[in-house]
């Protein structure tokens, strides 16, 4: 019996000791220091956005608000969006803490649609008063637009001297240069989604396009058929006879490595990639027309029942200040969502042709979900 007690006691002690070893990722920073509020930011996207938060937004915010600490976690490509959305849904329904105070990208619009987010308007987020109303409206009531970006056509200038200038010439180029073009599957990243949307829009009336951008109309989705047929016909001309990588980054890697010659890429990723040297200078980017690639705002969302809602709202509003908007513009080449006039002249110069107002927005979130599925069903491997 003594032995039994010893074994049990030993096990218990070890277990307890180990429990203590588990390390909360916030432990290092502020969570342990008393009296502070911590805002937990979840990014569902790519690493350049994490850099933006870590270097461009958080230090300034913490300095201005010494009582608030910010921790940032990245969920790459929204890999765990389903877990996080499930968690947020359960937390909101059960009125408990979801572990997220501010979400950047990913499932924000889905959550807004379901009514899980704290309502966002100029009264709760003062910074929003500077943002165009349409963009706020597309946020579904809870989404806070804080930066814009567009998709560009990147190409290898050593192989292509004169890139296509319109969608039609691009499609012709793809067919003429077998295996030299690809785009990521739309669900895995916005650049591929933008290419798909743009091809679909080619066959849609402007009014129908507008409907799909501002709300959910399932009946109208049948008008995509021609566009999907076009995309399907591209399969044999795409990289390796129809390989669509997962994620924006993989497309950029293929382009940088010289495996392909042309691809749609996010403007912000492209510009920051060239800055760090990951994308060689021989890769250049341009915008096409008729129609142009889509772009749009990235949204922030704050769960309805976040225990740190006030601080999170403050942080969201801070992201809309001219100073931060300028940081966004300069570090990740994101488009400002506030009037350019409020930004330094140098930045105004860069973005004068590319303000969110001038961008073609993407589809409404639920429509995008359906488009992702329809693409999966109708394009690859067919």
């Amino acid at each position: 019996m003594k032995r039994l007690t010893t074994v049990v006691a030993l096990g218990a002690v070890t277990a307890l000791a180990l429990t203590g070893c588990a390390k909360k990722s916030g432990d290092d920073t502020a969570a342990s220091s008393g009296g502070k509020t911590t805002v937990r930011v979840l990014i569902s996207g790519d690493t350049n956005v994490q850099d933006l938060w870590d270097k461009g937004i958080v230090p300034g915010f913490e300095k201005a608000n010494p009582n608030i600490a910010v921790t940032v976690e990245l969920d790459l490509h929204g890999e765990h969006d389903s877990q996080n959305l499930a968690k947020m849904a359960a937390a909101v329904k059960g009125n408990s803490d979801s572990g997220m105070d501010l979400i950047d990208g990913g499932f924000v619009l889905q959550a807004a649609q379901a009514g899980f987010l704290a309502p966002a308007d100029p009264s709760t987020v003062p910074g929003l008063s500077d943002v165009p109303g349409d963009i706020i409206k597309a946020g579904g009531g809870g989404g806070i637009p804080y930066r814009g970006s567009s998709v560009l056509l990147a190409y290898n200038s050593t192989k292509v001297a004169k890139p296509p200038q319109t969608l039609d010439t691009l499609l012709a180029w793809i067919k003429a240069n077998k295996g030299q073009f690809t785009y990521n599957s739309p669900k895995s990243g916005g650049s591929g989604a933008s290419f798909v949307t743009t091809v679909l829009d080619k066959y849609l009336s402007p009014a129908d396009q507008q409907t799909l951008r501002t709300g959910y109309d399932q009946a109208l989705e049948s008008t995509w058929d021609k566009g999907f047929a076009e995309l399907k016909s591209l399969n044999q001309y795409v990289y390796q006879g129809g390989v669509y990588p997962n994620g924006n980054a993989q497309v950029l890697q293929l382009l940088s490595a010289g495996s392909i010659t042309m691809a749609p890429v996010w403007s912000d990723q492209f510009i920051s990639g060239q800055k760090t040297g990951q994308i060689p200078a021989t890769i250049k980017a341009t915008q096409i027309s008729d129609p142009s690639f889509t772009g749009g705002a990235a949204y922030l969302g704050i769960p309805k029942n976040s225990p740190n809602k006030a601080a999170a709202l403050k942080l969201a509003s801070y992201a809309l200040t001219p100073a931060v908007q300028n940081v966004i513009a300069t570090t990740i080449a994101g488009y400002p969502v506030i009037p350019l006039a409020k930004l330094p002249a140098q930045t105004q110069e860069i973005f004068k042709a590319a303000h969110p107002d001038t961008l073609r927005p993407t589809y409404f979130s639920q429509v995008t979900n359906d488009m992702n599925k329809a693409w999966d069903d109708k394009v690859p491997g067919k």
Partner: protein
Amino acid sequence: MRRTRVAARSSGQPRAVLGFVMALPPLLLIAVFAGLPIVLAVGYSLGHTGGLNSVTASYAQHQHVATSGWGTFAAYREMLATGRFRTDVAVTVLVTLLSTAVVLVLALGIALNLRLRGGRVAGAIAALGVIPLFIPVVIASWAILTFYSTDGFIRSVFAQVGLDAPALGFKVVTIVIGSVWTSLPFAVLMVSSGIQSVPDAVIDAARDSGAGLLRTTRSVILPMAFIPIVIATTFTAIGVLGSFTVPYFTGPNSPRMLGVDIQNYFAAYNQPQQAIVIAVTIFVLASGIAVLYIWANFRSANSKDL
């Protein structure tokens, strides 16, 4: 040995109750944290959106709600009517069959070599087959993808001699390669243990009776190691059937395995109900395979003379 073991199991009334009570904790854990969610999920797939399911129901798209007391098969009908889903089921079954067959052939080869030839080399081969057990699946998938991809080892080697080998990244065959790689250890352990436990004497007796190695293997070794082989087969098949990581990393966008489809229906399409329909499909297929496992075990239990 086996008979005495079974006989040694006590079945007196008070001890039986004690045994039952001791067996309960893991069962309760599973019933609460896996059994209950499964029941709820199946209920949701049948259109029951109340209770705990209301959380999901609040944001799901294209949801079918039950109209009658027991529910509706509308979600299942919708999925079965989708060509893409049918293709994916077919591909999943195909990958499962292929991977299981290759795994079994490799495991049998390794085990028979160990049994019939023996020695250090055979032991080393068997140990080699177990190594993947200790490599996390994420790493394995990634390593395999880079090994077979456009700029991977295989193509590099062929390029040395001026040949252009096919790139195997993001193909269905890559999923099979990855599944074989990750499933091999369990099968090797099961099959070689089963074949090792065939006594020398019965093999010698077969040889002495005039059977060559092939015939000995077919008529004596394989039948005697039947149950471990069935177990290796069923567990490999069930594992591949529901796998996510390997096909997610190494497979193509289309056709896709069902495990990846679940994730897509959840996250990319926002159709959790349809995602659960896929999960139930996997579960039903797996149950079919599990029946084989249970049949083999009970068959052996009934003819207690192995």
